């Protein structure tokens, strides 16, 4: 008997033919990978030919929910957007909030698979079982916000909308996908995959249902968990200030990057801290089925954003030599509207600032020039002037102009805003993450810095530590649960999956699924030719010691990094070259 919780339907859309079909979900894969992240990677492992050009019609974009989507399980409103990344050439799944995941599920689908390419700009309209291909002639070239506004007026606010901005249309590898205006599938250039398919937006309305075995029992327990566990102080700080809370913690821990990761710690952090930003708060908004509501809607002098997240504050603040909170808000708004990932676009601009400062190439922008930084977003999204080069990200730009020793990236994905010299495990986490440098795969600072549960400046034990963090996140994101439920445990997760699917999931199985998800992603990347040589640490972290802050004097010796990699491969059962044995690959299928 198939598991409940799923709709057991996959909508496969052929954009080239403007046709679609519905097929049953591969329930055998759902048993192994649950949903969202893991399940979508399993599908793409099966369906994508090796060496597929990420921006060709042959690449596919998957919108994947999970069994918990559409139930009242707290923090379950996230959608996995998965494809082969044009930024990295790896598999790449990005998790997006808002209400789109729930709309897709209620429309009747576990997964929407987008294949091929529209012959001219258009958007896909899904209203339950009615699917249509609409023209985007009037939307192409428009900012993501204007496109969403137009579509909401046309179809109604009961529709959820995924859209791209000009950056996605112009195939920038920094391009994100937006939902509910201010939520992003940010990393890995998935907006460019949509753009390459001439797909401006996906508009979804769902009125259907999700069935579970014993709904009264399930709902009673889910509501109890919401009230007793989720709404604890350990989690609810995100309601008060969102992820701006991390600014002080990162600064105090010596991992807040300054001026393109040349140093850490900013004495002026209080100028742009959460309490300053929250003075502009107009209201609160969360994702569907979320009890925490991290979204802070801010307005200031014509600028409206939900956020900003810690990452954006850091990259448009201290890492860009800027202390003006209003410039950070504006940067965030324009990046969202242009459809650019605030992290990757920001990292690329601050690299250009350092290139200019060092006299290596004059990009016409220096640290502290926050107005120009905002202008650069528009140039990059439209590939105008130097924006044409910067739109390709910091890896490609440094290959062309030099400065790779301070190009902070792994596999072509730019660094998130946690400085590894103050949290050595994070350098390993960035290096082995399935989609390039990502902080969502294994969040080492939580252990090494915030909880101080492991010494931060050593390689010892980091392979196991990063693995355990990665295992947990891999199964959590495969169950479509948001990171903000920080007190989630395998016991809770397996109990919830059991209540919803009717299959008896155990806590031990959660770890097994997490490990399997890490492995299937690695298997995909391995097939694309990725091995140890791409699991890298940026030269700056090896060569330059931090000059100030709590981690002053720290750098990460190459031997220490290599040691951490060896440990991690050992834990995973991969060989010294980071390659999985064939029998392990076979066990994943």
């Amino acid at each position, binding site marked *: 008997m198939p598991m409940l919780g799923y709709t057991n339907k996959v909508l496969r859309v052929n954009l080239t033919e403007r046709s679609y079909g519905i097929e049953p979900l591969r329930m055998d894969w759902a048993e192994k990978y649950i949903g969202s992240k893991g399940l979508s990677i399993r599908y793409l492992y099966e369906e994508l030919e090796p060496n597929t050009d990420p921006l060709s019609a042959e690449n596919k974009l998957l919108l994947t929910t999970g069994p918990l989507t*559409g*139930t*009242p399980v*707290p923090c379950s*409103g996230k959608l996995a957007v998965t494809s082969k990344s044009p930024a990295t050439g790896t598999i790449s799944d990005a998790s997006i909030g808002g*209400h789109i995941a*729930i709309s897709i599920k*209620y429309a009747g689908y576990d997964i929407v698979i987008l294949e091929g390419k529209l012959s001219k700009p258009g958007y896909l309209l899904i209203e339950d079982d009615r699917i249509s291909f609409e023209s985007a002639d009037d939307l192409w070239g428009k900012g993501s916000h204007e496109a969403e*506004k137009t579509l*909401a007026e046309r179809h109604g*606010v009961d529709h959820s909308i995924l859209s791209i901005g000009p950056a996605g249309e112009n195939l920038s590898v920094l391009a994100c996908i937006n939902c*509910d*205006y*201010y939520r992003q599938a940010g990393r890995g250039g998935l907006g460019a995959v949509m753009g390459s398919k001439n797909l401006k937006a996906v508009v979804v309305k769902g*009125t*259907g*249902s*999700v*069935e*579970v075995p014993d*709904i*009264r029992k*399930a*709902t009673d327990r889910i*509501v109890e968990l*919401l*009230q007793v566990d*989720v*709404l604890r102080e350990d989690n609810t700080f995100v*309601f008060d200030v969102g992820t701006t809370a991390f600014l002080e913690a990162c600064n105090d821990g010596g991992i807040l990057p300054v001026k393109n990761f040349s140093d850490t710690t900013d004495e002026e952090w209080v100028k742009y801290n959460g309490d300053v930003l929250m003075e502009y708060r*107009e*209201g*609160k*908004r*969360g*994702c*569907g*089925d*979320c*009890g*925490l*509501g991290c*979204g802070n*809607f801010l*307005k200031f002098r014509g600028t*409206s954003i939900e956020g900003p997240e810690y990452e954006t504050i850091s990259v448009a603040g201290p890492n860009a030599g800027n202390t003006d909170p209003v410039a950070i808000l504006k940067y965030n708004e324009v990046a969202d509207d242009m459809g650019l990932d605030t992290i990757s676009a920001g990292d690329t601009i601050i690299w250009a600032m350092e290139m200019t400062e060092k006299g290596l190439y004059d990009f016409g922008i220096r640290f502290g020039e926050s107005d120009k930084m905002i202008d650069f977003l528009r140039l990059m999204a439209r590939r105008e002037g130097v924006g044409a080069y910067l739109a390709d990200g910091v890896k490609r730009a440094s290959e062309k102009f030099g400065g790779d020793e301070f190009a902070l990236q792994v596999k072509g994905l730019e660094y998130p805003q946690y400085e590894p010299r103050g949290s050595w495990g994070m350098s390993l986490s960035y290096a082995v993450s399935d989609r390039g440098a990502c902080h969502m795969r294994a969040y080492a600072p939580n252990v090494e810095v915030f909880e101080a549960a492991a010494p931060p400046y050593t390689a010892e034990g980091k392979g196991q530590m990063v693995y355990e963090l990665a295992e947990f996140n891999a199964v959590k994101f495969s169950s479509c649960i948001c990171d903000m439920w920080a007190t989630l445990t395998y016991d809770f997760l397996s109990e919830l999956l059991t209540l919803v699917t009717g299959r008896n999931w155990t806590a031990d199985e959660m770890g097994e699924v997490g490990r399997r998800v890490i492995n299937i992603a690695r298997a995909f990347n391995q097939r694309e030719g990725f091995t140890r040589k791409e699991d890298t640490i940026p030269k700056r972290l090896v060569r330059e010691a931090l000059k100030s802050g709590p981690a002053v004097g720290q750098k990460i010796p190459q031997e220490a990094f290599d040691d951490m990699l060896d440990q991690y491969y050992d834990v995973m059962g991969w060989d010294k070259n980071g390659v999985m044995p064939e029998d392990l690959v076979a066990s994943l299928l």
Partner: protein
Amino acid sequence: MKRLKLDKSKCLGCKLCATVCSAYKEGVYQPSKARIEIESYYDNGDIKYIDHYCILCGICAKSCPQGAISMEDYISVDQDKCIGCGTCAEKCPKKVIKIREQKSVICDTCLGDPSCVKTCPQNALTFA
């Protein structure tokens, strides 16, 4: 008489209220069939709200041509008398009443112990 109230400033737009309502009343998770519809959305740079929930105004009971709707501490619909004419839904000022399978579907505040209120994570919905 206790009534539902919504403090919009606390509402996240999570729609958990409707999801649990459909669970207890319809046996599936299906907010489109819930007896409450509260959500928020962005419009022209502002947060706007949809707030369809029963305020126990009693207009449905007074306007029912069949005398099928009664109100004491909560609304009751006599399924034998209701002919699904839709008068109640037309008159409902909060647009919360739906006609399904020729019967009127109205919030009964879970007989005075509303599940939506017990679920609302930010106490935006109250019953007092």
